[in-house]
């Protein structure tokens, strides 16, 4: 009985602590804003957010701008998954494929996605296609690397066991190698999501008529730091939500890792 009471108290504390830390952040933010007068305080930022609802920028409210950024990331992530996982599987699985493509990949991998912006603009202009391409270039890398690592770390004992039970080459790939690498692949997708979210903002800051990155630059250009900070808050919140969704998805797809 005593133990369960202690357990309940512990649970309550675990709910209170995050709220407490957010409250402290707001408090410090207010203190800094009041003492320096260089940045708006939380209430002014909230007021700015409400005003954005009445007077949209580029004919779009905040939801529209969030969606503009989000759909770019999700499209690029989708393409990255569709191309990156098979590519990672192939270089992990086939030796000749690895020797053929791994060196090329290793040269392209260190080039930051943002460095591609000039070339991509020449090829695709400044529209949606070029932004999605740039985000894709950032997001696909960790997916390929993690898939490849996952495949090369499949224990030999497990592939041996499957072989001894008569698994064909194809069955080894789909029944052993792929499920055994899923956790590593998921970690790659999570990293890709973070990178994609970062790259899309950079791309939007350079040239866009919508999106959270565009709002940040618009705020900066028009001396409207509150607008910039509204965008920053949403970037943080959306990023955290995406990563939570990803974790839930992983638990759903890899139930054997659950406690």
């Amino acid at each position, binding site marked *: 009985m005593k133990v369960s009471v202690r357990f309940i108290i512990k649970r309550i504390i675990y709910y209170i602590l995050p709220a407490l830390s957010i409250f402290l952040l707001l408090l410090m933010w207010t203190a800094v804003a009041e003492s320096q007068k260089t940045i708006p305080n939380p209430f002014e930022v909230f007021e700015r957010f409400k005003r954005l609802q009445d007077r949209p920028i580029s004919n779009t409210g905040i939801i529209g701008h969030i969606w503009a950024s989000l759909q770019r990331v999700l499209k690029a992530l989708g393409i990255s998954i569709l191309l990156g996982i098979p590519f990672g599987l192939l270089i992990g699985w086939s030796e000749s494929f690895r020797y053929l493509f791994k060196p090329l990949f290793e040269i392209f991998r260190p080039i930051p996605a943002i460095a591609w912006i000039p070339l991509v603009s020449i090829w695709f202009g400044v529209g949606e296609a070029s932004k999605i391409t740039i985000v894709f270039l950032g997001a696909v890398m960790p997916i390929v690397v993690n898939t490849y690592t996952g495949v090369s770390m499949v224990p030999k*004992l*497990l592939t*041996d*066991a*499957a*072989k*001894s*039970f*008569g*698994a*064909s080459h194809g*069955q080894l790939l789909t*029944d*052993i190698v792929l*499920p*055994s690498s*899923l956790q590593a692949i998921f970690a790659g997708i999570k990293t890709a999501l973070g990178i994609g979210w970062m790259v899309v903002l950079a791309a939007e800051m350079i040239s866009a008529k919508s999106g959270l990155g565009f709002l940040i630059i618009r705020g900066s250009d028009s001396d409207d730091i509150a607008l910039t900070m509204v965008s920053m808050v949403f970037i943080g919140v959306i990023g955290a939500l995406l990563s939570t969704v990803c974790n839930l998805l992983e638990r759903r797809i*890899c*139930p*054997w890792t659950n406690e």
Partner: protein
Amino acid sequence: MDERVKMRVRDLSKVFFTGKEDFKAVENISLDVLENEFLVILGPGQAGKTLFINMLSGLLSPTTGTVELDGEQVTGTSLKISVVFQKTAIMPWKTTIQNVEMGLKYQGISSNERKKISQQFIELVGLQGFENSYPRQLSGGMKQRVGIARAYAANPEVLLMDEPFGSLDAQTRYAMQDEILKIWETNKRTVIFITNNIEEAVYLGDRVILFSQRPARVKAEYRLRDLGRPRNYVDRAFLEMRQMIEKETDLALE
């Protein structure tokens, strides 16, 4: 029991070429395995027993020598041979039943049929109620039971068991020894069981073949059918046999 030779091993060697000098792991092993017998291979740790069994299963190709199953040479993995692995080698992402039906799945047997056969062997090893559990939810002994059910469900003619109880605690180990004999008696198959535990060898085997230290060679052979079954660890005949083997063994084992 008939005396037909099921597996014939001749001059089997495994040498690893590691630059400077050759590393002999298994040297000139010749032995016959009789149909439906329970043959125990007893040898000290690190003697090359696992390499030997991997050559029997076709997972490892020998440097010289041959393995024949029913007169035909074993060149790769065969559906007639199943392995119970030392480190279980069950798939962490598969449930008990999915692990047990692996062999049947790869043979292209329909899902319904697979479930029926697997269920039967899951019950035989006493895992009913855990069909949909993942390995991480099972104890060490239960995981090894999954491995045994998986090997039997594939319906092999020969079962290779590579120190399957090596990592279990003593209590579970004794229980599993009885379990494996019960299964063997209800589903007669040729079993080759590897261990480094003399007591276990004498308790289980129709015949015990003693391997030397590395490189593994056949050192002695003991016929234990006269001990009858079930055996008792403290019978006089049992203890005498145990002592006799102990004298011949290269290292004080366990």
